[in-house]
């Protein structure tokens, strides 16, 4: 019997692929109060709690969570290793708000023969390269990346 633990998997676009969404987010952030944003990279963070082996997590990441042609995944140890300098903005839905994506993922995991997870939380990670200070990054993120009514967020400086 494997003990239940929380696994964190980050999925991001391979660097050789142009990331249209991130580029357009950079423009949006610049116009919402963070003028020095030079680059944004968006990725997805999956937090899955349950009794999984390392092989489970690898297969799950490869076969369900990422598109192996355009995306890479990293199974993160705590705390996440970082390569900066950049601002790391993590955005997730409040626990009281329905998360259809997590719901669908749970379904898919059961259908793929994985043990049922205890819970899944999905977050968006934005790595923002900018000379702006935290208050500027925060106010521009609140204006453009998230809605404080339904989202929780954290902003950390990574160096």
């Amino acid at each position, binding site marked *: 019997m494997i003990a239940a633990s929380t696994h964190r998997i980050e999925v991001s676009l391979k660097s050789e692929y142009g990331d249209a969404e991130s580029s357009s987010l950079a423009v*949006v952030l610049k*116009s*919402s109060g963070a003028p020095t944003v030079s680059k944004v990279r968006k990725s997805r963070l999956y937090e899955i709690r349950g009794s999984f082996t390392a092989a489970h997590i690898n297969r799950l990441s490869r076969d369900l969570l990422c598109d192996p042609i355009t995306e890479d995944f990293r199974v993160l140890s705590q705390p996440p290793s970082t390569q900066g300098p950049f601002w790391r903005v993590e955005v997730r*839905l*409040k626990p*009281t*708000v*329905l*998360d*259809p994506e997590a*719901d*669908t993922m*749970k*379904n898919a995991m*059961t259908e793929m023969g994985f043990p049922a997870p205890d819970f899944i939380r999905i977050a968006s990670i934005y790595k923002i390269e900018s000379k702006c200070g935290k208050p500027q990054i925060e106010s521009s993120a609140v*204006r*453009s990346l998230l*809605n404080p*009514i*339904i989202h929780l967020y954290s902003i950390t400086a990574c160096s």
Partner: protein
Amino acid sequence: MTEKIENPTLPVQVLSDFNSLGIKELKNLSAQNLWSLNEKEILAVQAYFRSLKRNPTRAEIETVAQSWSEHCRHKTFKSPIRYQEGSKTVLIKNLFEETIARATRQTKKPWCLSVFKDNAGIVSFGKKGQWALAFKVETHNHPCAIEPKGGAETGLGGVIRDVLAAGLGAKPVLSTDIFCVAPPDKKLSLPPKALSPERILRGLIAGVRDYGNRMGIPTAAGGLYFDEGYALNPLVFVGSVGVLPAKAVKKEIRPGDLIVVAGGLTGKDGLHGATFSSANLNGDDHSTAVQIGHPLNEKRVMEALLNARDKKLYHSVTDCGAGGLSSAITEMADIVGARVQLEKESLKASDMEPWEIWVSESQERMVFAVPPSNLKAFEKVFADEGVESRVVGEFVKTGRIEVLWNGRPLINLSLKFISNGIPVEEKKAVYIPPKGNESRALPKKSLAENLKNILSHLNVCSREWLIRQYDHEVQGGTVIKPLQGTRHDGPGDASVIWPQAATKDVSDLSGFAVGHGLNPASGKLDPYQMAWLCADEALRNILCVGADISRAAFLDNFCWGNPENPQVLGSLVKAAMGCRDASLGFQIPFISGKDSLYNESKDASGKMVSIPGTLLISAIAPVPNIEKAVTMDMKGPGNSLYLVGQTGEDMGGSLYHEINGLAGGAVPRVDARCARRNFAAVYQAMSKGLVASAHDLSEGGLLTAVAEMAFSGEFGAMIDLDALPKQKPIYSAEVLLFSETPSRILLEVKPEHEAAFLKCVKGSCVKRVGSSIANPIIKIIGLDGLVLFEESTAPFKAAWQRTVLS
């Protein structure tokens, strides 16, 4: 799948001193609990429970509050209004009955199968009339102001469920979306919690895209309108068209039918959505009213429902929208009665009070009336799609709504009280026409500059960046697409859908077109004429693609400010009168509608700001043979250009005025008799395949329409202003080129069809005004016979394609 919570046990909450409370305490209680019941209403509720000699449970008051909310009851449209215009005062007993409903009755169209009764309006369809089209357009404004993406998703999900619950269920074949937002390029001072217009617009588009695309329904008939008046209260109109067998239009609940809920589990999502619609947005945190859509769940419900419908497994169906089970079951039980055991509902949250379960607005749920003998088969159909269904009660002939919670009475109300107990309150309306300050001196900008400014105006410029995000091809029936022309990027007037995915009959070439009319700019000057202009524009849009408008039907959507303000209500009444007269004038019935009021909020300085009164008229009509459908792009050189309808000096509310900073002027009037005759002739010609292309003249007038047709087809055009049919002599080229006289269409006719075309349009106002040319230029011959304007189309197309967002 979200886990189901077993055996919820929270007790029934009785408001033990309700009957002894004074009016002040009652009002406080209503405000605290977001019931949105006004003084008279809460007193009526107290009087009812005093007569029963018992205090109510919280669930009972919630039920009444939901049923009496503006959202469910349309109180403004159905209560008496003392209406004053000038020195005349009249009492309107029921605005809806006396305007829109009356006009619909008087038009007496036998092909209207269900109007204003069901979840959507239903009209007959198909070669042999064996099918029917259900059409509904809804607003979802308040939720979208708070969380645009979630609001747009659940708005679209809700209107799709309305169509799924029209008759015994229609298969959705088209989604529509119209957004009114503030211009994102303007610096506006917004209150701290308000989202920026750009943010709102991106969210709305993402919501419709993510939900519509995942549902596998084409989104192909939309619109986008910018005005600063929508900065705090964006408007979101989402619509759905479905196809159902004509035999499945009738639904009837029989006593003994089981009440079955199918779809997602019930949680705390979107509590108080219905009563929320009666409240102003005031910057407080409304997170409980926020819902997030789950398209994959809805898709499964849709597939199961259509399968169960074809197997005739249920007698009736409705969707769980605003007000949740409370509204759905109470509405269904209307003339019968219902007994519910609420603990049988499946939950996904463990800490739910029974009243919360009853009014929760968890999405993607439908309520069915299933005869007991079909239950097993019904449950199997839903289980096969992975959808949970549960029996929560039965319909009984008691005329009451009785709800038990673990054996204890939770609700016991007479349906008569719920439907008739609401106190009638007379509202006051005053119509004061805005002061016109006609400015006749037209500024001297060059025609080319004016045309460029118009084409790049936010309300005219290309929407390709938006349309391309939507899947408008899924189901394989979008025969005329939203973007038309040689490079598939021209502004089509409407889309034509051939719903073979629903009928599974490729020998039947019947399709349908959907168009919209929206003109808030004219509404600011004259709400009555705005209604006429919206009707006219919606009709012309579908006529331009070849729809048979003698079989058209209208839908109305009113979005206004606070109706407690007599002037706001006055303009609403005026617009409703316009709808009535336009319906009678064009002889086209309204089949469904919706109103969203209280669209006002405090701005950054604390001043209450209302939206401009906004009316959306949507039109739907069959295209009997999709092979005869027409697009707007010019098809070749040497073809004649015909203008339908006379041009007048109609610059009031025009885009030309707006871009040149001119205000006022009279809003154009629609001559319905003349327009009907012209439109009928045009349809005759189109149905015979005699029209190569057609485009309506709307914002920006003739020159804009010519430019759009030319650059979409990559040809040129020559227009002779002297040949234009005019209402009276007009000597200004600017007026002739930019006037927005309604009811006009520009047609392209090939030389070999010209004789037959002229025969078709004999007796109507259709005149040859120029021709198409191979060289992609626009050439205008002035009234003096000299060349007034000769420019290549390329810079105009470039101006039109330059957009603020992309």
